């Protein structure tokens, strides 16, 4: 790969990662000038083009556009004594939680402890066997599976989900594209079924945020994410929180928990 090819590969990767084209151009020009000044081949100075572009894109990523102010503090989710049984198997037993806008709750527990079931109960897609669930009217939900339609492109998803929220097609696509860039992803004209698992999950997350909901429910969003995207996602979770949304995240990475407001540990199912 000659120097020009190296720079072209770097530039392409920056664009793929959702870096603004003008910013990408500036970064590429800087890199070229720096390599010229050093008298080294860019690969010698910076390493492989795609890896370098990935580091640059991560360093250059701006915080998302200032979020709209939202009412801060009202309860967006209240669980009281929520239970869920499948036949004799008790999946959830007496779960209580009060989540306010501007707070993050992490749901932890072993595989099979009912984390996804609880999220479904919060979203209203799973009916609780007992207890009460109150939640804000506008919610965003990024489930672990089945969140995307395999034969629609990302833009078609944005228009479809935007329409549900009464958003115009153009605004829905613009908002979706901006949110995707915040996760280091530039959606292209590919149907969702052909996207990698990590990218599908990014699409899920974007769809969950499209309407600036008061309550955001995320299920294991890191699955398939690379490390940088994973960190970006947590930055995003805190950005939503700071904007006043209540965020419920299913996770099992313990190091995330020192910054969250509530930790809900599920004990797992029991046969009775």
């Amino acid at each position: 790969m000659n120097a020009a090819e190296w720079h072209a590969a770097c530039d392409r990767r920056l664009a793929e990662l959702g870096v603004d084209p003008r910013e990408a151009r500036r970064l590429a020009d800087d890199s070229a000038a720096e390599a010229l000044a050093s008298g080294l081949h860019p690969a010698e100075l910076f390493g492989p083009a795609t890896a370098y572009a990935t580091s640059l894109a991560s360093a250059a990523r701006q915080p998302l556009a200032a979020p709209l102010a939202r009412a801060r503090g009202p309860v967006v989710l209240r669980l009281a004594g929520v239970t869920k049984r499948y036949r004799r198997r008790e999946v959830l037993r007496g779960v209580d939680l009060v989540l306010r806008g501007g707070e993050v709750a992490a749901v932890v527990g072993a595989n099979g402890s009912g984390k996804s079931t609880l999220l479904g109960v919060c979203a209203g897609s799973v009916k609780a066997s007992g207890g009460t669930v109150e939640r804000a009217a506008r919610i965003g939900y990024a489930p672990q599976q089945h969140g995307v339609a395999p034969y629609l492109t990302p833009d078609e998803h944005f228009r479809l989900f935007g329409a549900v929220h009464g958003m115009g097609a153009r605004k829905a696509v613009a908002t979706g594209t901006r949110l995707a860039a915040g996760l280091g992803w530039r959606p292209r004209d590919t149907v969702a079924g052909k996207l990698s698992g990590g990218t599908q999950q990014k699409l899920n997350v974007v769809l969950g945020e499209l309407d600036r909901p008061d309550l955001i429910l995320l299920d294991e969003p890191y699955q398939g994410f690379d490390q940088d995207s994973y960190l970006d996602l947590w930055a995003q979770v805190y950005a939503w929180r700071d904007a006043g949304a209540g965020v419920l995240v299913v996770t099992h990475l313990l190091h995330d928990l020192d910054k969250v407001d509530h930790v809900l540990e599920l004990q797992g199912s029991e046969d009775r």
Partner: protein
Amino acid sequence: MRKQWLHGFLDLSLLCLLAERRDYGLGLGQRLAEAGFGDIPGGTLYPSLLRLEKQGLVQTDWETSTVGPRRKYFDLTPDGRAAAAARAAEWREFRAAVDRVAALAEETA
């Protein structure tokens, strides 16, 4: 291990070097090597500098040279100067704590 440590402390080290004097990328790389960090790959160094720039701690300008190609110089902003001092103080506190526990391992060895 050293590599992981460096990742954690490169930003601090760059702020401190720039507090001493403004410099261009390769110059910073050389000064890091002289300080005992070994060779820092450009693929690590430049993204760090970019991150500091985005955080408003570092500003850059291009300088043309009569003898060589133009060079990009990095310098601290006022915020960067304050951050360098604050982080250096934090680092000294942290280092003292690690030194105290490291001494325990040496005593028993």
